[in-house]
């Protein structure tokens, strides 16, 4: 019989097995965030040319591990937790086949450790992308394959839980919007992992000598089905978390279920095509393929993101105005709980993702503009805006909510928690903006020495490029401090936070269930439909402040986009 715990503060139901799995995945994710953060510090201090910390071999090793631990291991472990929350907890349903959930966890653990071992043994400094014909040790690929199989199992436990919830009628009507967003993430994950399997399995066989040759261009196309789509899982996941936090903090309801879900549907259809962003200056692939795929078939996934960009803050504005914060355009925003890290983290994530990550992504994903950006440090700047200040900060924000609710511990150091999103978001934004600038000046990504020490022929970057890399790296150090503050607060709370439930001991923080008396075999009440809205005037502008913000985004977008065309027009004619 499935056992459930009710959270006395929020009324959320936790299925015992799901609860353990959520904790275990989130905690392991945080461990990889720690590793990735330490490596980030080493990488950023090496690219700060005045410090130039690591020697070349260690730099490339650290950079390989940083990319994989942050972009893949931290985020996907946490996403497994998100999937289990979005299915089991939000639908008040037992988790389907908890046994397979633990298989997911075990495979991902073994895989992630194996790949890390391979990297730190030194023979696999091949970067996250591991482009052939450069070869890593066999267990580098094998670890990634095991990890991917684990993640795929996790996706199917999620889908299975949706089936169980429907069969056992644990909810009325359609699934909540947040769950729908998680479905989007899981669908993208399945394609991601399938692409990974198609290319990494042969590459593993090649590394142990069973296959003689892997075509380098074929590898690039299929690998990016994994590499880029895995970041699209994050987009769907963190947008869902924005909606969730808007609901948790403000009691906000989606402005329109139809619009928000249709936007997620556009993600399902088109988002993954953007894997082509990485192939725009590759040989032999036609412009038709490039234009169609890089634009998500006419930018329909960008349309979806622009819709979420309006509806997420718009729903907050509507909820705030209903509470009487109706003065002017922005009283609703000014009087938002800026000292609550759950909100501030989410809002900084929204703004940086939209204004920096989104705009730069579209610009450099434009077929011809990519010529002046490909493989410069502009690229990592862009994806730090999407994946670090976007996804990671959203995950941090929801973690602050989960510590009392899921882990039953009171948060320690609330003062530090208050400033953490600003520290992290601010530091990373400095890193991002200055790396964008350096990239525009042609500074290369994945490069140990912009002085080219030892090169037979030299080249000098302009002095301003060095300044930009220095300031950016300084921002990176602040960002790392912000990340450390997050881990200090969260891990500290799990270890030393006041117990909100007497049995919430040390082991309980890492996945062991609470005392038996916390759980009951009674089935949770059916999750009801949301209460109907009293009145809904479709002709008025319910969220004018948000509309102004959205127009500001659009104007920045248009201006920056055409500046880049102008820049492109100044380079040598090519055809």
């Amino acid at each position, binding site marked *: 019989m499935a056992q459930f715990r009710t959270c006395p503060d929020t009324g959320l139901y936790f299925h015992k097995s799901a609860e353990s799995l959520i904790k275990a995945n989130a905690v392991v994710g945080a461990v990889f965030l720690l590793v990735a953060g330490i490596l980030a510090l080493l990488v950023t201090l090496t690219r700060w040319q005045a410090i130039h910390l690591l020697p070349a071999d260690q730099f490339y090793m650290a950079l390989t591990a940083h990319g994989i631990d942050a972009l893949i291991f931290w985020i996907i472990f946490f996403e497994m937790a998100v999937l289990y929350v979005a299915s089991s907890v939000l639908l008040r349903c037992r988790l389907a086949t908890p046994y397979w959930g633990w298989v997911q966890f075990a495979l991902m653990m073994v895989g992630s450790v194996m790949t890390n071992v391979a990297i730190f043994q030194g023979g696999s400094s091949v970067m996250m992308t591991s482009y052939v014909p450069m070869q890593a040790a066999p267990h580098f690929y094998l670890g990634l394959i095991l990890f991917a199989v684990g993640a795929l199992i996790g996706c199917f436990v999620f889908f299975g839980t949706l089936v169980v919830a429907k069969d056992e009628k644990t909810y009325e009507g359609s699934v909540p919007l947040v769950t729908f967003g998680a479905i989007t993430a899981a669908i993208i994950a399945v394609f991601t992992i399938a692409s990974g399997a198609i290319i990494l399995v042969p590459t593993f066989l090649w590394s142990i000598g069973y296959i003689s040759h892997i*075509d380098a261009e074929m590898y690039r196309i*299929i690998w990016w089905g994994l590499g880029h789509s895995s970041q699209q899982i994050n987009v769907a996941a963190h947008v869902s978390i924005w909606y969730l936090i808007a609901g948790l903090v403000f009691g906000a309801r989606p402005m329109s279920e139809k619009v928000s879900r*249709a936007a997620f*549907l556009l993600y399902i259809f088109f988002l993954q095509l953007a894997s082509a962003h990485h192939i725009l200056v590759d040989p032999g692939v*036609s412009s038709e393929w490039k234009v169609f795929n890089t634009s998500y078939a006419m930018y329909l996934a960008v349309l979806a993101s622009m819709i979420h960009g309006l509806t997420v803050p718009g729903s907050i504005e509507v909820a705030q105005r209903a509470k009487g914060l109706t003065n002017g355009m922005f009283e609703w925003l000014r009087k938002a709980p800026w000292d609550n890290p759950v909100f501030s983290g989410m809002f900084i994530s929204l703004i940086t993702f939209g204004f920096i990550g989104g705009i730069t992504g579209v610009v450099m994903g434009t077929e011809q503009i990519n010529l002046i950006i490909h493989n410069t440090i502009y690229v990592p700047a862009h994806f730090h805006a999407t994946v670090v200040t976007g996804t990671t900060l959203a995950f941090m924000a929801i973690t602050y909510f989960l510590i009392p609710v899921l882990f039953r511990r009171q948060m320690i150091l609330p003062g530090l928690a208050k400033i953490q999103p600003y520290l992290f978001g601010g530091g990373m934004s400095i890193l991002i903006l200055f790396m964008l600038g350096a990239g525009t000046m042609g500074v290369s990504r994945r490069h140990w020495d912009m002085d080219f020490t030892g090169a037979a022929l030299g080249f000098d970057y302009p002095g301003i490029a060095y300044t930009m890399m220095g300031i950016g790296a300084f921002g990176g150090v602040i960002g790392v401090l912000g990340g450390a503050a997050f881990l200090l607060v969260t891990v500290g709370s799990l270890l030393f936070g006041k117990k909100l439930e007497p049995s919430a001991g040390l082991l309980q923080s890492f996945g062991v269930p609470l005392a038996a008396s916390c759980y009951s075999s009674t089935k949770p009440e059916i999750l009801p439909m949301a209460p109907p*809205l009293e009145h809904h005037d479709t002709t008025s502008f319910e969220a004018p402040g948000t509309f102004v913000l959205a127009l500001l985004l659009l104007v920045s977008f248009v201006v920056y986009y055409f500046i880049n065309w102008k820049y492109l027009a100044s380079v040598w004619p090519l055809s």
Partner: protein
Amino acid sequence: MNETTNQPDEKKERIPAMQSLLDNPFLLLFIGVAMPTVFYLMWGIMEIVTIPVAP
């Protein structure tokens, strides 16, 4: 939307096709995997394998 929300008579109305699609995760899964497989992967690989051999 109006005050008649959640009224029993609404339950008799047929669910629109788009809503049924959005309520069907497995159909969405099929579409979400098929789209990039056809347009990105298969089309892309076809482009690569049809590149002529250098003279």
